[in-house]
């Protein structure tokens, strides 16, 4: 098929009909930031209280989730910190949809994070939360956020139309 070019820089007015385009549309974007000191001694996943809520407009939509961790910390000699992305749909219990990080002991981290394409198959509200925990068999505390350098965690969620 011969290529067809649409020249838009001059002489075009009005709105192009969306039905002429298909796939890959960003339908909405939401995001949030987090800068509260948060730490745990829990060996099972626990809510960091950093979450972003989005209500997909169609069950066929996908959610592109980008999370950036500013400055997690594990004290020297303590066990590692594990991270997971949880999803709560329509007020039901939150479930782990992907475990994505492990921070070793005696390490500060900056700029670590996650990019994940999620298919919730719902038009109910979806709450995406970062959970964290200390690895089993350890002791002490792991820090999801420690404000020593005033950095900020961030999460952006884009609904991608089918």
């Amino acid at each position: 098929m011969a290529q067809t070019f649409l020249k838009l820089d001059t002489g075009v007015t009005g709105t192009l009909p969306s039905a002429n385009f298909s796939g890959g549309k960003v339908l909405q974007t939401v995001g949030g930031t987090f800068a509260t000191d948060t730490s745990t001694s829990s060996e099972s996943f626990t809510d960091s209280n950093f979450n972003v809520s989005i209500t997909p407009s169609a069950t066929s939509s996908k959610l592109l989730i980008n999370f950036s961790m500013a400055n997690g910390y594990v004290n020297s000699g303590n066990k590692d910190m594990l991270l997971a992305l949880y999803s709560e749909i329509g007020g039901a219990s939150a479930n782990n949809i992907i475990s994505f990080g492990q921070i070793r002991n005696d390490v500060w981290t900056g700029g670590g994070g996650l990019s994940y394409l999620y298919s919730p198959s719902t038009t109910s509200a979806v709450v995406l939360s970062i959970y964290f925990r200390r690895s089993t068999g350890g002791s002490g505390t792991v820090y999801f956020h420690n404000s020593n350098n005033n950095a900020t965690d961030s999460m952006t969620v884009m609904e991608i139309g089918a």
Partner: protein
Amino acid sequence: MTNIEKFWKALNTLRANTECTVSGDILTEDNFNNNIKWNTGVDGETAIVTSTCPHSEITWTAVKEEMDKL
């Protein structure tokens, strides 16, 4: 030593291996009552938590006393 580090040391002194999660500072009794989620069990890989401390030996008075020693 930061306030949070003092809290964790005080907690470990009062009751070792207590599992909980802290969001924000623990400077007042109000912080103690509202900024801590205490583990009471586990559902699969997820903690079951409560805002009410389930351990009788851990009170704001006892925690503050230990924190003030640090």
